[in-house]
Protein backbone atom coordinates (compact mmCIF):
# COMPACT_ATOMS: atom_id res chain seq x y z
CA UNK A 1 0.00 0.00 0.00
CA UNK A 2 1.55 3.25 -1.12
CA UNK A 3 1.32 6.80 0.11
CA UNK A 4 -0.27 9.72 -1.67
CA UNK A 5 1.41 13.13 -1.37
CA UNK A 6 -0.31 16.25 -2.61
CA UNK A 7 1.87 19.19 -3.71
CA UNK A 8 -0.02 22.43 -3.21
CA UNK A 9 0.56 26.14 -2.61
CA UNK A 10 -2.54 28.28 -2.92
CA UNK A 11 -0.79 30.84 -5.05
CA UNK A 12 -0.06 30.14 -8.68
CA UNK A 13 3.36 30.24 -10.25
CA UNK A 14 5.43 29.25 -7.24
CA UNK A 15 6.54 25.97 -8.80
CA UNK A 16 4.03 23.29 -7.82
CA UNK A 17 4.25 21.49 -11.15
CA UNK A 18 8.04 21.71 -11.32
CA UNK A 19 8.24 20.45 -7.75
CA UNK A 20 5.82 17.60 -8.45
CA UNK A 21 7.78 16.53 -11.52
CA UNK A 22 11.12 16.67 -9.76
CA UNK A 23 10.09 15.12 -6.47
CA UNK A 24 8.43 12.31 -8.44
CA UNK A 25 11.52 11.85 -10.57
CA UNK A 26 13.82 11.93 -7.56
CA UNK A 27 11.70 9.32 -5.79
CA UNK A 28 11.89 7.10 -8.86
CA UNK A 29 15.67 7.59 -8.91
CA UNK A 30 15.67 6.20 -5.38
CA UNK A 31 14.08 3.07 -6.78
CA UNK A 32 10.49 3.71 -5.72
CA UNK A 33 7.53 3.08 -7.94
CA UNK A 34 5.94 6.45 -8.49
CA UNK A 35 2.79 7.71 -10.16
CA UNK A 36 2.40 11.40 -10.88
CA UNK A 37 -1.19 12.61 -11.01
CA UNK A 38 -2.00 15.95 -12.63
CA UNK A 39 -5.26 17.30 -11.19
CA UNK A 40 -5.07 20.65 -12.95
CA UNK A 41 -7.93 19.74 -15.27
CA UNK A 42 -8.26 22.19 -18.13
CA UNK A 43 -4.79 23.64 -17.62
CA UNK A 44 -2.60 20.60 -17.58
CA UNK A 45 1.14 20.99 -17.90
CA UNK A 46 2.81 18.35 -15.77
CA UNK A 47 2.97 16.25 -18.95
CA UNK A 48 4.82 19.07 -20.74
CA UNK A 49 7.36 19.47 -17.94
CA UNK A 50 7.90 15.70 -17.95
CA UNK A 51 8.17 15.64 -21.74
CA UNK A 52 5.37 13.11 -22.07
CA UNK A 53 2.81 15.31 -23.78
CA UNK A 54 2.61 13.53 -27.12
CA UNK A 55 2.12 10.12 -25.60
CA UNK A 56 -1.16 10.91 -23.89
CA UNK A 57 -4.09 8.84 -25.14
CA UNK A 58 -6.55 8.83 -22.27
CA UNK A 59 -6.68 11.15 -19.30
CA UNK A 60 -7.93 11.41 -15.72
CA UNK A 61 -11.46 12.38 -16.72
CA UNK A 62 -11.68 9.38 -19.09
CA UNK A 63 -10.76 7.10 -16.21
CA UNK A 64 -13.23 8.68 -13.80
CA UNK A 65 -16.03 8.53 -16.34
CA UNK A 66 -15.26 4.92 -17.19
CA UNK A 67 -14.18 5.42 -20.81
CA UNK A 68 -11.00 3.49 -20.15
CA UNK A 69 -9.21 1.40 -17.55
CA UNK A 70 -6.76 3.15 -15.29
CA UNK A 71 -3.68 1.40 -16.71
CA UNK A 72 -4.64 2.52 -20.22
CA UNK A 73 -4.47 6.15 -19.21
CA UNK A 74 -1.13 5.92 -17.40
CA UNK A 75 1.79 7.23 -19.44
CA UNK A 76 5.04 5.41 -18.79
CA UNK A 77 8.26 7.39 -18.56
CA UNK A 78 10.74 5.49 -20.72
CA UNK A 79 13.74 7.02 -18.93
CA UNK A 80 12.87 4.77 -16.03
CA UNK A 81 12.41 1.06 -16.43
CA UNK A 82 9.07 0.56 -14.80
CA UNK A 83 9.16 3.09 -12.01
CA UNK A 84 7.64 6.35 -13.17
CA UNK A 85 4.15 6.86 -14.56
CA UNK A 86 2.00 9.89 -15.21
CA UNK A 87 -1.75 10.16 -15.06
CA UNK A 88 -2.42 13.28 -17.14
CA UNK A 89 -5.26 15.72 -16.60
CA UNK A 90 -7.86 16.36 -19.25
CA UNK A 91 -7.42 19.48 -21.30
CA UNK A 92 -10.95 19.75 -22.64
CA UNK A 93 -13.10 19.63 -19.49
CA UNK A 94 -12.88 21.76 -16.37
CA UNK A 95 -12.38 21.14 -12.66
CA UNK A 96 -16.02 20.31 -12.04
CA UNK A 97 -15.78 17.22 -14.26
CA UNK A 98 -14.44 15.30 -11.25
CA UNK A 99 -15.66 15.13 -7.66
CA UNK A 100 -13.53 14.65 -4.53
CA UNK A 101 -15.18 11.26 -3.92
CA UNK A 102 -14.23 10.03 -7.38
CA UNK A 103 -10.67 11.25 -6.88
CA UNK A 104 -10.44 9.38 -3.59
CA UNK A 105 -11.51 6.15 -5.25
CA UNK A 106 -8.98 6.72 -8.03
CA UNK A 107 -6.06 7.48 -5.70
CA UNK A 108 -6.94 4.51 -3.47
CA UNK A 109 -6.80 2.29 -6.52
CA UNK A 110 -3.40 3.68 -7.54
CA UNK A 111 -2.08 3.18 -4.01
CA UNK A 112 -2.41 -0.57 -4.49
CA UNK A 113 0.24 -0.60 -7.22
CA UNK A 114 2.58 2.27 -6.43
CA UNK A 115 4.87 3.24 -3.56
CA UNK A 116 4.23 6.95 -3.99
CA UNK A 117 1.47 8.88 -5.68
CA UNK A 118 2.50 12.51 -6.22
CA UNK A 119 -0.53 14.69 -6.83
CA UNK A 120 0.00 18.03 -8.55
CA UNK A 121 -2.64 20.43 -7.23
CA UNK A 122 -3.96 23.41 -9.21
CA UNK A 123 -3.68 26.93 -7.80
CA UNK A 124 -6.57 28.26 -5.78
CA UNK A 125 -8.76 26.79 -3.06
CA UNK A 126 -11.81 25.79 -5.08
CA UNK A 127 -13.00 22.53 -6.59
CA UNK A 128 -9.61 21.69 -8.11
CA UNK A 129 -7.91 21.95 -4.73
CA UNK A 130 -10.60 19.86 -3.05
CA UNK A 131 -10.20 17.18 -5.71
CA UNK A 132 -6.44 17.13 -5.28
CA UNK A 133 -6.44 16.75 -1.50
CA UNK A 134 -9.31 14.26 -1.38
CA UNK A 135 -7.23 11.12 -1.66
CA UNK A 136 -3.97 12.40 -0.16
CA UNK A 137 -2.26 11.06 2.98
CA UNK A 138 0.41 13.74 3.16
CA UNK A 139 0.73 17.28 1.93
CA UNK A 140 3.68 19.39 0.85
CA UNK A 141 3.16 23.13 0.64
CA UNK A 142 5.36 25.01 -1.82
CA UNK A 143 6.08 28.68 -1.29
CA UNK A 144 8.57 31.25 -2.50
CA UNK A 145 10.21 33.81 -0.24
CA UNK A 146 7.64 36.45 -1.16
CA UNK A 147 5.09 37.91 1.22
CA UNK A 148 2.18 37.13 -1.09
CA UNK A 149 3.18 33.50 -1.57
CA UNK A 150 3.72 33.05 2.16
CA UNK A 151 0.30 34.57 2.87
CA UNK A 152 -1.38 32.09 0.54
CA UNK A 153 0.68 29.22 1.94
CA UNK A 154 -0.58 30.19 5.39
CA UNK A 155 -4.16 30.05 4.14
CA UNK A 156 -3.67 26.68 2.50
CA UNK A 157 -1.99 25.25 5.62
CA UNK A 158 -5.04 26.32 7.60
CA UNK A 159 -7.28 24.46 5.16
CA UNK A 160 -5.05 21.38 5.13
CA UNK A 161 -5.05 21.21 8.93
CA UNK A 162 -8.82 21.01 8.84
CA UNK A 163 -8.72 18.20 6.32
CA UNK A 164 -9.17 14.79 7.87
CA UNK A 165 -6.81 11.98 6.96
CA UNK A 166 -3.93 14.22 5.94
CA UNK A 167 -0.84 14.35 8.13
CA UNK A 168 0.67 17.70 9.17
CA UNK A 169 1.75 19.54 6.01
CA UNK A 170 5.44 20.09 5.30
CA UNK A 171 7.07 23.02 3.56
CA UNK A 172 9.28 23.55 0.54
CA UNK A 173 10.71 27.01 0.02
CA UNK A 174 11.33 27.39 -3.67
CA UNK A 175 13.24 29.94 -5.76
CA UNK A 176 15.54 31.18 -3.05
CA UNK A 177 17.79 33.96 -4.20
CA UNK A 178 20.62 34.04 -1.80
CA UNK A 179 21.85 37.58 -2.38
CA UNK A 180 18.36 39.04 -1.84
CA UNK A 181 17.84 36.98 1.27
CA UNK A 182 21.18 38.05 2.67
CA UNK A 183 20.45 41.73 2.17
CA UNK A 184 17.12 41.30 3.90
CA UNK A 185 15.22 42.21 0.73
CA UNK A 186 13.54 38.83 0.77
CA UNK A 187 12.05 36.85 3.64
CA UNK A 188 14.64 34.42 4.92
CA UNK A 189 14.15 30.73 5.56
CA UNK A 190 13.93 31.10 9.33
CA UNK A 191 11.39 33.89 9.08
CA UNK A 192 9.14 31.84 6.83
CA UNK A 193 9.31 28.68 8.91
CA UNK A 194 8.62 30.46 12.20
CA UNK A 195 5.78 32.36 10.60
CA UNK A 196 4.12 29.28 9.13
CA UNK A 197 5.29 27.04 11.98
CA UNK A 198 5.32 23.79 10.05
CA UNK A 199 8.22 21.44 9.33
CA UNK A 200 10.56 22.36 6.52
CA UNK A 201 11.24 19.50 4.11
CA UNK A 202 13.47 21.33 1.66
CA UNK A 203 14.78 24.53 0.17
CA UNK A 204 15.45 25.00 -3.52
CA UNK A 205 17.58 27.75 -4.98
CA UNK A 206 16.43 29.81 -7.91
CA UNK A 207 18.28 28.25 -10.80
CA UNK A 208 18.08 29.02 -14.52
CA UNK A 209 18.79 25.37 -15.22
CA UNK A 210 15.37 24.46 -13.81
CA UNK A 211 13.61 26.55 -16.43
CA UNK A 212 15.84 25.27 -19.22
CA UNK A 213 15.27 21.66 -18.21
CA UNK A 214 11.50 22.12 -17.90
CA UNK A 215 11.37 23.60 -21.37
CA UNK A 216 13.16 20.56 -22.73
CA UNK A 217 10.72 18.27 -21.02
CA UNK A 218 13.39 16.86 -18.78
CA UNK A 219 13.02 17.31 -15.03
CA UNK A 220 16.11 18.93 -13.52
CA UNK A 221 16.36 16.09 -10.98
CA UNK A 222 17.80 13.92 -13.77
CA UNK A 223 20.83 16.19 -14.03
CA UNK A 224 23.07 15.36 -11.06
CA UNK A 225 25.25 18.49 -11.32
CA UNK A 226 22.72 21.19 -10.67
CA UNK A 227 22.09 22.65 -7.22
CA UNK A 228 18.36 22.49 -7.67
CA UNK A 229 18.63 18.85 -8.66
CA UNK A 230 20.45 18.01 -5.44
CA UNK A 231 17.80 19.94 -3.52
CA UNK A 232 15.03 17.84 -5.07
CA UNK A 233 16.93 14.62 -4.48
CA UNK A 234 17.40 15.63 -0.85
CA UNK A 235 13.67 16.25 -0.55
CA UNK A 236 12.98 12.78 -1.93
CA UNK A 237 15.37 11.28 0.64
CA UNK A 238 13.65 13.16 3.42
CA UNK A 239 10.28 11.86 2.20
CA UNK A 240 11.76 8.37 2.47
CA UNK A 241 12.64 9.12 6.10
CA UNK A 242 16.35 9.85 5.85
CA UNK A 243 17.66 12.85 7.71
CA UNK A 244 19.58 15.01 5.30
CA UNK A 245 21.00 18.39 6.37
CA UNK A 246 19.71 21.46 4.58
CA UNK A 247 21.72 22.63 1.63
CA UNK A 248 23.76 25.68 2.42
CA UNK A 249 23.97 28.52 -0.05
CA UNK A 250 27.06 29.92 1.62
CA UNK A 251 29.56 27.78 -0.27
CA UNK A 252 28.21 29.21 -3.45
CA UNK A 253 29.16 32.67 -2.24
CA UNK A 254 32.59 31.52 -1.13
CA UNK A 255 33.04 29.88 -4.50
CA UNK A 256 32.23 33.12 -6.25
CA UNK A 257 34.62 35.02 -4.02
CA UNK A 258 37.46 32.64 -4.61
CA UNK A 259 36.75 32.72 -8.31
CA UNK A 260 37.13 36.49 -8.28
CA UNK A 261 40.28 36.20 -6.22
CA UNK A 262 41.61 33.67 -8.61
CA UNK A 263 40.68 35.91 -11.47
CA UNK A 264 42.69 38.77 -10.01
CA UNK A 265 45.48 36.42 -8.99
CA UNK A 266 45.89 35.23 -12.53
CA UNK A 267 45.94 38.75 -13.83
Amino acid sequence: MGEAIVITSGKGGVGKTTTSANVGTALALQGKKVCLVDTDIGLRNLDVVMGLENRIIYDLVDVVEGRCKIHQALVKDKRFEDLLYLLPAAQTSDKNAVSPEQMKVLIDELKQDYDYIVIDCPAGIEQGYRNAVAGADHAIVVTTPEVSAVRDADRIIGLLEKEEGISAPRLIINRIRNHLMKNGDMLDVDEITTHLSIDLIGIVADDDEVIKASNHGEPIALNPNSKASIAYRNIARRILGESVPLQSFEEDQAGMFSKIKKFFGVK
Partner: protein
Amino acid sequence: MKKYQNVTIKGTKEGLTLHLDDTCSYSDLKEELDQKLSESSKSQSDKLISVMVQVGNRYLTADQKEELRELIRQKKNLVVDTINSNVITKQEAEAERIAHEVVSIAKIVRSGQVLEVSGDLLLIGDVNPGGTVKAGGNIYILGALKGIAHAGCSGNREAVIAASVMKPSQLRIEECLNRAPDHYPGEDGREMECAYIDENNQITIDRLQALMNIRPNLSKLQGGF
Protein backbone atom coordinates in the same frame (compact mmCIF):
# COMPACT_ATOMS: atom_id res chain seq x y z
CA MET B 1 -58.52 35.24 55.40
CA LYS B 2 -54.87 35.82 54.72
CA LYS B 3 -52.46 35.81 57.58
CA TYR B 4 -49.88 38.03 55.89
CA GLN B 5 -49.70 40.28 52.90
CA ASN B 6 -48.32 39.18 49.54
CA VAL B 7 -47.21 42.70 48.67
CA THR B 8 -45.34 44.96 51.04
CA ILE B 9 -44.14 48.45 50.20
CA LYS B 10 -41.07 49.93 51.82
CA GLY B 11 -39.63 53.39 51.41
CA THR B 12 -35.84 53.74 51.19
CA LYS B 13 -33.48 56.58 50.38
CA GLU B 14 -33.32 55.48 46.74
CA GLY B 15 -37.08 55.25 46.37
CA LEU B 16 -39.72 52.65 46.93
CA THR B 17 -39.09 48.93 47.19
CA LEU B 18 -41.91 46.52 46.50
CA HIS B 19 -41.45 43.16 48.15
CA LEU B 20 -43.52 40.55 46.36
CA ASP B 21 -44.09 37.28 48.15
CA ASP B 22 -42.78 34.22 46.30
CA THR B 23 -45.09 31.55 47.71
CA CYS B 24 -48.49 32.74 46.46
CA SER B 25 -49.73 32.26 42.90
CA TYR B 26 -48.81 34.79 40.24
CA SER B 27 -52.43 35.81 39.61
CA ASP B 28 -53.06 36.45 43.31
CA LEU B 29 -49.94 38.53 43.39
CA LYS B 30 -50.97 40.61 40.40
CA GLU B 31 -54.39 41.22 41.81
CA GLU B 32 -53.10 42.30 45.18
CA LEU B 33 -50.43 44.49 43.65
CA ASP B 34 -53.01 46.24 41.54
CA GLN B 35 -55.21 46.81 44.55
CA LYS B 36 -52.41 48.01 46.81
CA LEU B 37 -51.04 50.48 44.31
CA SER B 38 -54.44 51.88 43.49
CA GLU B 39 -55.15 52.81 47.07
CA SER B 40 -51.68 54.15 47.90
CA SER B 41 -50.85 56.24 44.87
CA LYS B 42 -53.70 58.70 45.00
CA SER B 43 -52.28 61.41 47.20
CA GLN B 44 -48.80 61.53 45.60
CA SER B 45 -47.37 64.53 43.76
CA ASP B 46 -46.48 64.50 40.03
CA LYS B 47 -42.85 63.62 40.64
CA LEU B 48 -41.80 60.25 39.23
CA ILE B 49 -40.78 57.74 41.84
CA SER B 50 -38.49 54.90 40.89
CA VAL B 51 -39.46 51.56 42.23
CA MET B 52 -37.34 48.54 42.91
CA VAL B 53 -39.18 45.26 42.77
CA GLN B 54 -37.96 42.33 44.86
CA VAL B 55 -39.58 39.07 43.90
CA GLY B 56 -37.56 36.74 46.12
CA ASN B 57 -37.32 33.17 44.89
CA ARG B 58 -39.94 33.56 42.18
CA TYR B 59 -38.88 33.06 38.57
CA LEU B 60 -40.50 35.58 36.21
CA THR B 61 -40.55 35.12 32.47
CA ALA B 62 -39.84 38.11 30.26
CA ASP B 63 -43.59 38.43 29.58
CA GLN B 64 -44.44 38.41 33.26
CA LYS B 65 -41.77 41.01 33.98
CA GLU B 66 -43.23 43.18 31.27
CA GLU B 67 -46.68 42.70 32.72
CA LEU B 68 -45.55 43.81 36.16
CA ARG B 69 -43.77 46.83 34.76
CA GLU B 70 -46.91 47.76 32.86
CA LEU B 71 -49.07 47.32 35.92
CA ILE B 72 -46.88 49.49 38.08
CA ARG B 73 -46.37 52.09 35.35
CA GLN B 74 -50.13 52.56 35.07
CA LYS B 75 -50.13 54.04 38.53
CA LYS B 76 -49.21 57.46 37.19
CA ASN B 77 -45.94 58.36 38.87
CA LEU B 78 -44.30 55.04 39.56
CA VAL B 79 -41.51 53.80 37.32
CA VAL B 80 -39.93 50.40 37.68
CA ASP B 81 -36.21 50.70 37.97
CA THR B 82 -35.17 47.09 38.40
CA ILE B 83 -36.80 43.75 39.06
CA ASN B 84 -34.64 41.58 41.28
CA SER B 85 -35.08 37.87 41.52
CA ASN B 86 -32.96 35.33 43.35
CA VAL B 87 -33.41 32.73 40.62
CA ILE B 88 -32.35 32.53 36.98
CA THR B 89 -32.82 29.76 34.44
CA LYS B 90 -30.10 27.31 33.52
CA GLN B 91 -29.78 28.90 30.09
CA GLU B 92 -29.23 32.32 31.61
CA ALA B 93 -26.69 30.90 34.02
CA GLU B 94 -24.89 29.17 31.17
CA ALA B 95 -24.87 32.34 29.08
CA GLU B 96 -23.52 34.26 32.06
CA ARG B 97 -20.83 31.67 32.62
CA ILE B 98 -19.76 31.69 28.98
CA ALA B 99 -19.63 35.48 28.92
CA HIS B 100 -17.25 35.49 31.87
CA GLU B 101 -15.21 32.50 30.92
CA VAL B 102 -11.63 32.69 29.70
CA VAL B 103 -11.46 30.33 26.73
CA SER B 104 -7.95 29.03 26.16
CA ILE B 105 -7.02 27.79 22.70
CA ALA B 106 -3.67 26.43 21.54
CA LYS B 107 -3.70 27.05 17.80
CA ILE B 108 -2.34 29.23 15.08
CA VAL B 109 -5.00 31.37 13.51
CA ARG B 110 -3.97 31.39 9.88
CA SER B 111 -4.89 33.60 6.96
CA GLY B 112 -8.61 33.36 6.22
CA GLN B 113 -9.52 31.81 9.55
CA VAL B 114 -11.80 33.47 12.08
CA LEU B 115 -11.75 32.46 15.72
CA GLU B 116 -14.66 33.77 17.76
CA VAL B 117 -15.50 33.32 21.44
CA SER B 118 -18.13 35.05 23.56
CA GLY B 119 -16.02 35.44 26.70
CA ASP B 120 -12.36 36.25 27.10
CA LEU B 121 -9.90 34.65 24.71
CA LEU B 122 -6.53 33.26 25.73
CA LEU B 123 -4.71 32.25 22.57
CA ILE B 124 -1.59 30.15 22.95
CA GLY B 125 -0.18 30.69 19.46
CA ASP B 126 -0.06 33.33 16.78
CA VAL B 127 -2.55 35.24 14.72
CA ASN B 128 -1.05 35.36 11.25
CA PRO B 129 -1.75 38.15 8.76
CA GLY B 130 -5.22 37.69 7.30
CA GLY B 131 -6.44 35.80 10.35
CA THR B 132 -9.04 37.23 12.74
CA VAL B 133 -9.77 36.71 16.42
CA LYS B 134 -12.95 38.03 18.00
CA ALA B 135 -14.05 37.95 21.60
CA GLY B 136 -16.96 39.31 23.58
CA GLY B 137 -14.47 40.17 26.30
CA ASN B 138 -10.73 40.63 26.41
CA ILE B 139 -8.15 39.06 24.13
CA TYR B 140 -4.84 37.79 25.47
CA ILE B 141 -2.39 36.41 22.93
CA LEU B 142 0.72 34.59 24.11
CA GLY B 143 2.22 34.55 20.61
CA ALA B 144 2.42 37.18 17.94
CA LEU B 145 -0.60 39.17 16.82
CA LYS B 146 -0.15 40.01 13.14
CA GLY B 147 -3.73 39.77 11.97
CA ILE B 148 -6.93 41.39 13.17
CA ALA B 149 -8.12 41.32 16.77
CA HIS B 150 -11.59 42.48 17.79
CA ALA B 151 -12.21 42.64 21.54
CA GLY B 152 -15.51 43.49 23.21
CA CYS B 153 -17.30 42.76 19.94
CA SER B 154 -20.70 42.44 21.63
CA GLY B 155 -20.37 45.90 23.15
CA ASN B 156 -17.80 46.21 25.87
CA ARG B 157 -15.74 49.37 25.79
CA GLU B 158 -13.64 48.23 28.72
CA ALA B 159 -12.23 45.29 26.77
CA VAL B 160 -8.48 45.13 26.16
CA ILE B 161 -6.16 43.31 23.77
CA ALA B 162 -2.80 42.11 25.02
CA ALA B 163 -0.15 40.32 22.99
CA SER B 164 3.44 39.19 23.40
CA VAL B 165 4.25 40.60 19.99
CA MET B 166 1.93 43.37 18.92
CA LYS B 167 2.07 43.82 15.15
CA PRO B 168 -1.60 43.75 14.21
CA SER B 169 -2.94 44.72 10.82
CA GLN B 170 -6.00 46.08 12.59
CA LEU B 171 -7.20 46.47 16.16
CA ARG B 172 -10.88 46.78 16.98
CA ILE B 173 -12.40 47.29 20.40
CA GLU B 174 -16.19 47.53 20.47
CA GLU B 175 -16.87 50.08 17.69
CA CYS B 176 -13.42 51.65 17.65
CA LEU B 177 -11.00 50.75 14.93
CA ASN B 178 -7.29 51.30 14.62
CA ARG B 179 -5.26 50.58 11.55
CA ALA B 180 -1.61 49.62 11.75
CA PRO B 181 1.03 51.94 10.42
CA ASP B 182 2.03 51.00 6.88
CA HIS B 183 5.48 50.08 8.07
CA TYR B 184 6.50 49.00 11.50
CA PRO B 185 9.64 50.93 12.32
CA GLY B 186 12.34 48.47 13.25
CA GLU B 187 12.02 45.05 14.70
CA ASP B 188 11.99 45.78 18.40
CA GLY B 189 9.76 47.68 20.78
CA ARG B 190 6.63 45.73 19.87
CA GLU B 191 6.78 43.19 22.64
CA MET B 192 4.46 42.75 25.61
CA GLU B 193 1.96 45.42 24.74
CA CYS B 194 -1.71 46.04 25.28
CA ALA B 195 -4.44 48.03 23.55
CA TYR B 196 -7.45 49.73 25.13
CA ILE B 197 -9.88 52.58 24.48
CA ASP B 198 -8.61 55.72 26.18
CA GLU B 199 -10.60 58.72 27.42
CA ASN B 200 -10.53 60.32 23.92
CA ASN B 201 -12.29 57.29 22.45
CA GLN B 202 -9.14 56.28 20.64
CA ILE B 203 -7.46 52.93 20.75
CA THR B 204 -4.14 53.39 22.50
CA ILE B 205 -1.26 50.97 22.66
CA ASP B 206 0.79 50.89 25.81
CA ARG B 207 3.13 48.70 27.79
CA LEU B 208 1.43 45.63 29.23
CA GLN B 209 2.20 46.81 32.75
CA ALA B 210 0.07 49.93 32.27
CA LEU B 211 -3.07 47.79 32.26
CA MET B 212 -3.14 47.28 36.01
CA ASN B 213 -3.78 51.00 36.52
CA ILE B 214 -6.05 51.51 33.53
CA ARG B 215 -8.28 48.45 33.99
CA PRO B 216 -8.08 47.43 37.67
CA ASN B 217 -11.14 45.25 37.13
CA LEU B 218 -9.03 42.77 35.18
CA SER B 219 -7.77 41.35 38.47
CA LYS B 220 -10.23 38.76 39.61
CA LEU B 221 -8.20 37.65 42.62
CA GLN B 222 -9.95 38.41 45.88
CA GLY B 223 -7.80 39.68 48.74
CA GLY B 224 -4.11 40.44 48.57
CA PHE B 225 -0.93 38.53 48.15
